[in-house]
C-alpha cells in the first residue's frame, strides 16, 4: 500500500509539471495551428536561465520563476514576431521545419556556451522530503513545484476566461478569420499566445531544475512528452492538457512499479494509442470539421 501511495503521489506531482509543459504547447497550437517542435528546447532555455540566475545571482530556483516567466514571455513573443508569424499561412511541413530549426539553433547555441556537461542545481532542499505517514514521503522540491504549477494554471484559467485579452485569444483560437473580422488584432494575440506558451515551458524548466539535471539536449525528451500530453488531452484544450499531464505522470509512475521501469514508456504510448483509437480527438478535444 505504501508503495502504491508513494507512486501515486510522485506521479501526480511530476504530472503537474508535465501539465504545465503541455498547456504551453496546446495554447500555441490552439491559437496558431502551428505545432511547436521547439517546445522542449524553450523549456531547456528556461532551465539554463534558472541555472544562471541561481549560480550568478544566488536566487533560489523557485523564486527565480518571477524573473524567468517574463523573460521567457519576451523570448517567445520575439520568436513569434520575427519567425513564426511569417509562416502562419505556409504549409504545415514548412512550419514544422522552422520550429525544428529554431530548436536546433537553441540547443546548439547553449551547447557552445555551456558545453554539453550536465549541470545539477544543488539547493539546501534538493533531497529533502516530508514524511506523510505510512512510510510515504513527499519530495519537498517536487511539492513546491506542484503548488506553483497549480497556482500558475489557476491564474491562466482566470486570464483566459475573465480578461478581454484572454477572451480575444480564445476567439482567435476558435476562428481566426471571424476574430479578425470582429476587430481582434490576431497577430498581436498570436504573439501573446506564443509568449505565454514559452513562458509556461520556461517556468516548467525552472520548476524541474532543482530535481532534474540540465543539459543542452534535454529538450527532446520533453518535446515528445508535451506532444503525447496535448494529443491525449485534445489539441488546443487547456483542461485536456492539464488532465493529460497528470494522467501521464501517474501512468509512468505506476507502470514503473507494477510492470517495469524499462517498460514505462511503452505503457504510456499504448495508453496514448488507445485514446487515439477510441477518441481520436483526445480526451477533451472537439473534432474540428
Amino acid at each position, binding site marked *: 500500500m505504501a508503495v502504491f501511495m508513494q507512486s501515486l503521489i510522485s506521479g501526480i506531482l511530476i504530472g503537474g509539471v508535465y501539465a504545465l509543459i503541455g498547456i504551453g504547447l496546446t495554447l500555441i497550437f490552439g491559437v496558431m495551428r502551428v505545432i511547436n517542435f521547439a517546445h522542449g528546447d524553450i523549456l531547456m532555455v528556461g532551465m539554463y536561465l534558472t541555472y544562471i540566475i541561481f549560480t550568478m545571482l544566488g536566487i533560489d530556483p523557485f523564486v527565480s520563476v518571477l524573473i524567468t516567466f517574463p523573460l521567457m514571455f519576451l523570448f517567445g513573443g520575439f520568436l513569434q514576431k520575427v519567425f513564426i508569424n511569417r509562416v502562419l499561412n505556409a504549409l504545415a511541413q514548412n512550419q514544422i521545419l522552422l520550429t525544428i530549426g529554431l530548436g536546433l539553433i537553441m540547443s546548439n547555441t547553449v551547447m557552445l556556451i555551456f558545453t554539453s556537461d550536465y549541470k545539477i542545481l544543488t539547493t539546501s532542499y534538493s533531497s529533502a522530503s516530508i514524511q506523510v505517514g505510512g512510510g510515504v514521503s513527499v519530495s519537498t522540491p517536487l511539492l513546491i513545484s506542484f503548488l506553483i504549477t497549480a497556482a500558475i494554471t489557476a491564474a491562466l484559467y482566470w486570464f483566459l476566461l475573465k480578461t478581454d485579452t484572454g477572451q480575444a485569444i480564445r476567439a482567435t483560437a476558435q476562428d481566426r478569420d471571424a476574430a479578425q473580422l470582429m476587430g481582434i488584432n490576431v497577430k498581436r494575440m498570436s504573439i501573446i499566445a506564443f509568449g505565454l506558451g514559452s513562458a509556461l515551458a520556461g517556468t516548467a524548466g525552472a520548476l524541474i531544475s532543482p530535481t532534474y539535471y540540465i543539459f543542452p539536449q534535454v529538450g527532446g525528451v520533453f518535446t515528445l512528452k508535451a506532444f503525447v500530453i496535448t494529443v491525449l488531452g485534445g489539441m488546443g484544450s487547456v483542461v485536456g492538457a492539464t488532465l493529460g499531464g497528470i494522467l501521464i505522470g501517474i501512468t509512468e509512475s505506476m507502470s514503473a512499479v507494477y510492470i517495469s521501469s*524499462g517498460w514505462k514508456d511503452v505503457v504510456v504510448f499504448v495508453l496514448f494509442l488507445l485514446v487515439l483509437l477510441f477518441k481520436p480527438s483526445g480526451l477533451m478535444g472537439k473534432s474540428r470539421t
Partner: protein
Amino acid sequence: MRKHLLTLGATLALSPFLMAQKIGVINSMSGPEAPIGENITNGIKLAEEDLKKKGLSLQLVWEDDTGKPQISMSAMEKLATRDNVVGVVGPYTSACSNAVAKLAEKYKVPLLIPAAAKEEITRQGLKHVFRMNAPADKYASSLIDAATAMGKPKTIAFIYENTDFGTSTSKTAKDYVATKGIQVVADVPYPKGSADYRSTLAQIKSKNPDLVFMVSYVADAILLMRQSKEVGLQPQAFLGAGAGFTTTEFAKEKAISESVISCTQWTDDVNWPGAKDFGARYKAKFGKEPTYHAACAYASMMIMAETAKNAGGDRAKTRDALKAGKWNGVMGEVAFADYDGFTNQNNHQMLVQQILAGNYETILPTKFATKKAVYPFPKWK
C-alpha cells in the same frame, strides 16, 4: 650546395621513418557522454605531450562519436580506410566500443579500448581488439567481495540503466551473488534520463535489501541517490558500479554521496610507477582530478604509440607486438592475455573506494587503503 642536396636526399629517403605515425582516436567529445569523454581526451593529450618529450611525435586523428554507436562506426571506417591509421584508441562507451570492435577486426586495425566495461567486447575472439580496463565482471565481483568482507549481507537489490553497460554489469553481478548465497530481491532496469525514480525506489525500499547495487552514469547517479534519501532507502551499503559514482561531480554532492561505495580502475593512491606524478601533472594542467578514464586513456595511448612506432607503422606487426608486449606504468602491469574466455584482455586489479568527507578514499585492497571503511551505511540525516 652539394652537401645540402645530399642532406635533402637523405631526408627524403628516410622520410617514411621520420614521418609521424598516424593514430586514430574515437571518443565521445560532445553529447551526453561528453563529461566523461573529456577525461579521456585530456589523458590522451597528456600522453601526446609525454611522447613528444620522448622524441616520438605522432599525428593523432580525432573523431567525435557523440556517444552514438553508428557515428562511432563511421568514424572507424574513415580512420581505417581514408586516414590509414596504424591503430585506434577508443571509443568510450560500451555500446560504441562493441560496435567498433567488429569493424576493427574487419579492417585488421589494432584497436585499444581504454575504458569500456561490457565483457562481450573482448569475449568474441577478435584478434585486433585489445582492452586496457577490467571488464564489468570485475566491477561486480570486487564490490560484492568488499561488502561481504565488511558485513553479512543476505539480500541485494539491483537498479541499473537499461543500456549495454548497465545490463551487462548487473547481469554479471547477479551471477556472482548467486555463488555467494545472496538473494536478489529486486531487479530493476530503468530508461536513462527519467525524471522520477521515486516509485521504483519506494518499491525497492519495501523489500528492505541489505545491499543496493546501482549502475548509472553521472547525472542519474546523483538523481538516484537524492531520491533514495527522499524515500528513506536505508541498506547496509550502496554499491555504485563505475562511471557515474566515481566522478568528482558526484563526490561534491556531499549530502547524498557520503559513504557510497564504488569501485574504480585507478586512483592516485596506488604505487604503480608514474601514477602519483600523472595525477599531479593532470591536476596542474587541466585544473581537476583525473578520473580512471583519464589514466586508462593515457596508458592506452602511450602503449599504442610506442608499439606502433616500434612496428614501423605496420598494422599486423603492431597487433603482434601488442599481443606479445608487457608494460608497467600508471595503470600498473599491463599485458593483453587470453583467459576465462577473454581475448587480449588486460587482467587489471580493481580498487574499491568509499566517499568519506567528500573525497574518494581507497578502502580495498588493504595495501592501497587510505582510510578505514564506514560500514554499515550511516542513517540518513
